[in-house]
């Protein structure tokens, strides 16, 4: 059985880990290389870096972080934030990222997803979808860290991204992010009904039960940040909660 993936997400700014509550109030929390390696040793199934406020100037800083992380982390590493071109994807992959996550640039230019998938294969192209509920039963895409509305229906967008060659969708609820109220399960269910791709749920984890709910809603990966960074839970606790609820998880292995 394919196991549920537990994915800690590190927000990185200028080469340092920060973390956000509703995408504001960032505070420095350390070295991304050390943290990623520590999560790998804790049994994380993947690690995601999100380059917060990525700019042209600090791109090389992020590539250096990716390169140093990949030298000691032998599980998949996804990197998102500021990925705007096929060249940006290429640089991340060459630095050692396994997947590149495209967000705002996909909205600005959907064909970028197709071109990147054709160049490197769908397996390394993640499309990140930041969605906010606007009326009952309707979610729309927001970009630029949740500040910019696009009017695009999130579920239809997910389908379109699948058609263009995305290999995975990272679905973040802007309503739930930072609230600790759990994933937006209805949003996940609706995307799952329409799209066959692997689905990573993001935004809102505050308790162990929330991981189980995400799996039940159809997510194949469960991403969380603050509950892990703050030491509220360890990766193994999230896996144990899933296992008790009957979901397959990868057993702990001795650190590599």
């Amino acid at each position: 059985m394919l196991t549920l993936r537990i994915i800690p997400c590190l927000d990185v700014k200028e080469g340092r880990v920060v973390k956000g509550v509703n995408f504001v109030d960032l505070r420095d929390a350390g070295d991304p290389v050390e943290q990623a390696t520590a999560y790998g040793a804790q049994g994380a199934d993947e690690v995601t870096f999100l380059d917060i406020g990525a700019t042209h100037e600090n791109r090389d800083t992020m590539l250096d972080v990716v390169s140093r992380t990949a030298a000691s982390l032998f599980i998949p590493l996804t990197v998102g934030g500021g990925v705007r071109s096929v060249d940006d994807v290429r640089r991340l992959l060459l630095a050692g990222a396994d997947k590149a996550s495209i967000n705002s640039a996909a909205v600005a230019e959907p064909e970028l997803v197709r071109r990147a998938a054709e160049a490197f294969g769908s397996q390394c192209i993640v499309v990140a979808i930041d969605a906010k509920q606007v009326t009952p039963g309707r979610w729309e895409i927001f970009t630029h860290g949740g500040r910019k509305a696009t009017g695009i229906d999130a579920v239809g967008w997910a389908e379109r991204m699948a058609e263009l060659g995305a290999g995975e969708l990272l679905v973040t609820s802007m309503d739930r992010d930072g609230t600790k109220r759990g994933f937006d399960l209805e949003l996940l269910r609706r995307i799952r009904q329409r799209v066959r791709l692997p689905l990573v749920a993001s935004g809102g984890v505050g308790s162990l039960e929330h991981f189980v709910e995400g799996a039940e809603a159809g997510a194949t990966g469960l991403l969380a940040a603050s509950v892990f960074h703050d030491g509220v839970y360890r990766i193994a606790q999230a896996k144990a909660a899933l296992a008790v609820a009957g979901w397959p998880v990868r057993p702990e292995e001795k650190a590599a």
Partner: protein
Amino acid sequence: MRLAVVDPGSGNLASVHRAVERAAEMAGAAVQVTVTRDPADVAAADRVVLPGQGAFAACRHGLDALPGMEAALNEHIGPRARPLLGICVGMQLFAERGLEHGVTPGLAWLPGEVAPMDPRGPDGKPLPLPQMGWNRLDISQDHALFAGLAPDAHAYFVHSYAWSGGRPEDLLATTDYGGPVTAVVGRANIAGTQFHVEKSGLTGLTILANFLTWSP
């Protein structure tokens, strides 16, 4: 020992390179790793790793675009009888053909073909594709590559196409995704993993370390 990692075109082989170096430390082996598109490096290598990502046809065409590479690989595994490890699409290329947007001939090292998956859950509903994530290895035949693995070892898979129609004696391990899916094939001095050994944590590094010390 000289080890050549053949780059069939994607260029994204940093992970494989680093994992081989880490595995060499684990195995206590002195390994000189070269990531290469030059058949002369394959001719000079004691061991070869053939990775591959993306589409079967793209990897096949990538190899074809390297003059002399297929001949050098055939020489390596045939007359020179040296070990070779295929990873992901690199393993799939061992087959006679790939069925992805038409038929593409493989290297035909083993009988079998690579066909689209359509995994279904117990309720008949389609399972997500690609299979992306960690799945358990169900070992069909004991093999030197599996030495020291935990009984419930898991590996990291990313694929929408799978090996089918091979010989039972070439099937070394499967994984369960809506039924058994080929995970490792091998015969004599060649072996290939559908999963990414370089991204499969200690399990993957153990298999790589075993490959470095394998005497088929």
